[in-house]
């Protein structure tokens, strides 16, 4: 097993463990958010292993560096330290639901290998910002422009909802 492959499996394990940590951690939301930060970073490393270099750095910049900072901000500032998780509530459906989810997942994983496409050879600069950028700014110029309106909608929506007084 090459070093890169080893890295992949270590990071995969880390991602799964921290993801579980985020979901199962019932007491401290800040710790949950920090778990998710680690998940994001390990996914970024996995992207590097998968030759998605540009995506990897954006993953860190936007997900780990921006989106989760915002989460942390909200969690800290609203003082959401405790989850109001009360075990007395009927958890049976949730357990059953989770079990069903795991069963579906297992079935999916079992049949997965036959369904996958063949792995192609890639050019040396695969996944570089150049290649991705050229595709984005030429072939995908429509979604690119739409992204800007989407972000405008987010700005307006956020201001409308969160601002105390709208003049």
């Amino acid at each position, binding site marked *: 097993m090459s070093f890169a492959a080893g890295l992949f499996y270590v990071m995969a394990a880390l991602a799964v463990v921290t993801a579980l940590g985020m979901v199962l951690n019932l007491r*401290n939301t*800040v*710790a949950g958010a*920090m778990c998710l*930060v680690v998940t994001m970073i390990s996914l970024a490393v996995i992207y590097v292993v998968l030759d998605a*270099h*540009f995506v990897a*750095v*954006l993953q*860190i*910049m936007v997900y*780990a*560096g*921006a989106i989760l*900072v915002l989460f*942390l*901000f909200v969690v*800290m*500032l609203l003082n959401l330290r405790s989850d109001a998780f009360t075990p007395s509530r009927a958890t049976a459906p949730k357990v059953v639901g989770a079990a069903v989810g795991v069963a579906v997942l297992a079935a999916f994983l079992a049949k997965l290998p036959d369904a996958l496409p063949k792995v192609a050879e890639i050019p040396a*600069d695969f996944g*570089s*910002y*150049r290649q991705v950028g050229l595709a984005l700014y030429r072939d995908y110029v429509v979604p690119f422009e739409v992204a800007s309106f989407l972000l405008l909608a987010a700005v307006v929506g956020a201001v409308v909802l969160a601002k105390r007084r709208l003049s």
Partner: protein
Amino acid sequence: MDLWTVVRALFIILVVVAAFAPVITWVERKQSAVMQDRIGANRADIGGITVLGLLHPLADVLKLITKEDFVPAGANRFLHALAPIIAAIPAIIGFAVIPYGATYQFPGHEPFTLVGADLDWGLLYIFAIGSLATYGSVLAGWASNSNWGMLGSLRASAQMISYEVTMGLSVVGVFMVYQTLELTDMAVAQDSTFHLFGFLETFGLVKTLPGWLSFAQLPFWGVFVQPLAFVMFLTCIMAENKRPPFDAPEGESEIVAGYFMEYSGMRFGLFYMSEFIEIVVIAGLLTALFFGGWSIPYLSKDELIAGMTPVMGVGLATALTMVAHVATFLLKVVIMIWLQMQIRWTLPRFRYDQIMDLCWKIILPLSLVNIFVTGAVILLVKGAP
């Protein structure tokens, strides 16, 4: 991974962390003393020898390391311990993509580049770890269960994230000129000159440049082709480092020490250290982006090697060039550090609203304008493909 990778990385760590950063703490004290007409730090001595107070950094480290490992009541012990490390690591690894020399090839060897890691999205790496550095200050304030700490961490994080955006946008003009995100490529591109009045030729105002005009050449440095970007980037990156005049997050007259107020010993030491390491990283970054990196003005690498080869052979010429380049780079870094110190001790602290206004209302629109003006000029001068 070979030995040389490790050596190049070690060089960075040694120069930046072990040599520059401690010295800067001394420079800072000395410079403030000079500017305030005092003598400054000069007491720490070993056997009576003070070497101008240069032993103070060592004394600092010893003092911080032997202090009590202290956690305030009500703090989240784990995050309280983690925060300084999260703050320090991005600072230390920041220098990894900054080239301190060109690509050299010795006869019979593989070519190599003097940089920690030659990534094709080099500058984005800086932005990425810069965005991760926010966690350090956010967690520090939150974990220490103190009002001042919390306020400091709020201010720090709001300031850092705001300036992150403008910092990125302000240098887009530089990307547009050099057509790369890779810092090594930028330095190579800056290792040349341009005719100051070349545009006269491009727009057909003159047929060929008269000799006296074509003589006016400048190094193709970022600071000459993107002066506005330089000013904005310098502002933003200093604000990112939260040093005066942007030190509202730790404004001692209002919130004592801000987010690291409840820290002492080496826990505090790591915050302190990361601040000074960042100064070096910023200096390196400014050098690489705007001052030609390792390049010697008017004397490109190829000319230098070619000029020396007949005298001493390729190997030695390359080696000498390499040494010259690294020395040039370090010199430029020192100048950039001096510039930051100068700013730090000249300007008073901005108010918090001024800091945020500067970011969102001045630099952000200005950087957008800069991008499009640069774009239009490039397309008009060079012609669209």
